[in-house]
């Protein structure tokens, strides 16, 4: 019965959206699951360093024949304790026909959030500049910071896209 009503609710509320939840320094963030291509373990051996680029660009790796840049979010946002362990993962994102890998502390969940569970983005500082946030998701005790990952990764400050770097 319960399941049934849940699925009814799902059908009724078409504004629900699924998010991939990842952690950076104990804070949980959510990104649109549709932008995520896959999740891989981080293997520093397979990442080729590139000279003369910002330190958060770890380099490029071979993803089944495609050369993909790897960006470490923790370095980009000046988090402490940047360590690479068995929990460190690379989220491979597919953005505007580009493929980019993002290093995060871990991936915890995939959650469905209804529009009612999302509130406006806070004006206080998070790791991300507020212009890349789409809102705050609440799920019981948990708080997710929802990030517009596409906007962030193609932004000028990430320097991943040619024309953004004039």
């Amino acid at each position, binding site marked *: 019965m319960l399941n049934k009503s849940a699925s009814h609710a799902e059908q009724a509320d078409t504004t629900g959206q699924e998010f991939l939840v990842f952690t950076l320094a104990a804070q949980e963030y959510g990104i649109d699951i549709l932008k995520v291509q896959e999740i891989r373990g981080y293997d520093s051996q*397979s990442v080729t360093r*590139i000279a003369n680029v910002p330190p958060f660009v770890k380099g490029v790796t071979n993803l089944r024949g495609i*050369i993909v840049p790897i960006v470490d979010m923790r370095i980009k946002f000046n988090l402490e304790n940047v360590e690479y362990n068995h929990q460190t993962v690379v989220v491979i994102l597919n953005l505007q026909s580009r493929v980019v890998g993002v290093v995060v502390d871990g991936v915890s969940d995939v959650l469905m959030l209804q529009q009612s569970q999302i509130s406006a983005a806070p004006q206080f500082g998070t790791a991300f500049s507020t212009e890349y946030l789409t809102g705050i998701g609440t799920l019981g005790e948990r708080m997710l910071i929802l990030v517009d990952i596409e906007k962030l990764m193609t932004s000028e400050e990430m320097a991943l896209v040619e024309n953004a770097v004039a």
Partner: protein
Amino acid sequence: MSAGVDLSQFFETFFDEADELLADMEQLLLVLDIDNPDIDQLNAIFRAAHSIKGGAGTFGCFGHLAETTHLLENLLDFIRKGEMPLRKDMIDLFLETKDVLTEQVAAYRNSEEPDVAAYERICAQLRELALEQAGGAQAAARPAQQAGPAAPQAEPAAQRAQPSSPQGEDAVRQAEPAVPQDVQAPGGELPLRLRVTSVSAKDADALAAEMALLGDILHQEKTADSLAVWMRTTASSDDLVAVCCFIVDAGQVDIAHEAVPQQARHASTAVAAAPAPSGQATGSASAAAASAAAASAAAASGSPSQPRAEPSPSQPAGGRNAVSNSANEKGKPAATGAGSGSSSSTIRVGVEKVDQIINLVGELVITQAMLVQTASTLDPVLHDRLLNGIEQLDRNARDLQEAVMSIRMMPMDYVFSRFPRVVRESAAKMGKQIKLTTYGQATELDKSLIERIIDPLTHLVRNSIDHGIETPEARRAAGKSPEGNLVLSAQHHGGQIVIEVSDDGAGLNRERIYRKALSQGMAVTENTPDEELWQLIFAPGFSTAEKVTDISGRGVGMDVVRRNIQGMGGHIQLSSRAGQGTTTRIVLPLTLAILDGMSVRVGEETFILPLSHVTESMQPSADQVRRISETEYVLHVRGEYLPIVALHNIFAVEGAVTDITRAIAVVLQAEDVRFALLVDHLIGQHQVVVKNLESNYRKIPGVSAATILGDGSVALIVDVFALMRVTRDKAMI
């Protein structure tokens, strides 16, 4: 006709075909000998126009295209039948028409309406030419009509008609046109005669039924395998052919305006000798020729039969309206020949699909290399079969890769074929006589390169026409033939392709370049060797043209050419001798997808150097290294001092060998600059699959691309030109 069928899915194919046909048409027009045109070529041009018209008509929504090709087709039809002498201005007009058609196709492709002004202008010109012909034809018909027994005009016509006459009685039955019953009838009122050959009785019935729907059937004749129908209809002959095409091939159908042969059977007893011209002949058989033939035949047999010898003046008009889906001998084999030649032996495949295959094969090669690497540690005795298998795989993968790469290869003809037009027009504009010769059209080059070589090459050709080759007077004065020679050639040379543009013109003017260089403050002296001086014309903003012309001389040319060529991983050289001409030589890699590389190790990192730039490598000895400043060293190699560039400095590699005498110096050449690159070790030479960095990331300074090594890791390919600029900038400081 097309109710319920979405034709738009076929548009793309039609556009592609139309583009190809137009390209063919242009080429044929350019090679056409005006004084003595080749009938096969004329037929081919005609067919191209006809096919486009047919396609455009079928879809029904490309009105401008259909109308323009229709007018063009009519004119071409007169020419190929010899009713209209070919003139140079016609070729010009046809070429212009081709351009308009190309634009129309492009417009329709983009779902836009084509340029109406251009359409109307070109149609008006075509109609004018057609009118000219109509006037001429009537004039020609009159003498034929009055010709009498020995009319010279009638003679050739009779000869033309004769081949079909031996069929005697049988032929006469089909020889209706020679027996115009209703001589007074104006051509416009003659009924339409539709003849279908090689058709089964069942199909013939079906066709007759179809025709009955389109108009009033006046008369029909059936033989074992042919059907002839006389009808009055408002439908155009094109429509009739289109309807017939549902049952038979267009080639089997022949339509003309013709009188109903009420007395045809009587005629067979009357004059057995009457030749049967247009029954068999080209569907459009000129009625003038037919009647002239009849006239002379009658004269020959000595039995002047007035009605026959007197052709109706209006008949030529009727004959011209004939649709020339040339029924028999002439039309059919040629048409099928052209069709099967191009369509059955090729498949049209999207470039993405090919690229996907190439990528997959690249993957396979990498995986295979990985296997080889892993297997090399195994005991060959214990794993004999596995190792054999891997060796086999190695060979197969390599063959497969080669075969797949060859799909992308296109012949240079794709580029060269557009130059006859360029030369013809530019030469005419400049008042020069130029003969273009091309060699090595079959030389193959990667598709992406071939598309990028067009612009630089066009520029070089225009330069040769504009500055290189002199005017006929100047050439005569210099003791040369007034006709200048322009030679385009392409050939494979090692793993590279060499493309040359050479002319036998005046050559570069040393004095003028020298003065220009001085005035621009360039470092030149009287003694600067020619070769170095010539390189200056590749400098930005350098043009020695006395006047800026439509064709060249703005000084933005040669540096762009050189940059384009370098962008393709090639280089450009120039040699010139005063009074004898100039040769520009472009050297390009065959493909951008695979590169012969030398892998080198610096610290813990591996880099790939393009082998085409590596001239030698050595371990420098202490006495070869000279220090010229705090951080700069040069390497003394056989009397030459080469700047030393340390790869670990450029890419900030840690843990690299810093002692020059313990490192390896690889001597690299980029254009005319040579320098020594310091690396730790040489690993080996191998072919690498070039992977674009920009597709997911962005351009990295000093790196041209990346590749994937046997162990699956990514290695960066060093951009030698960028390193060269680094050394050059250093030298300037």
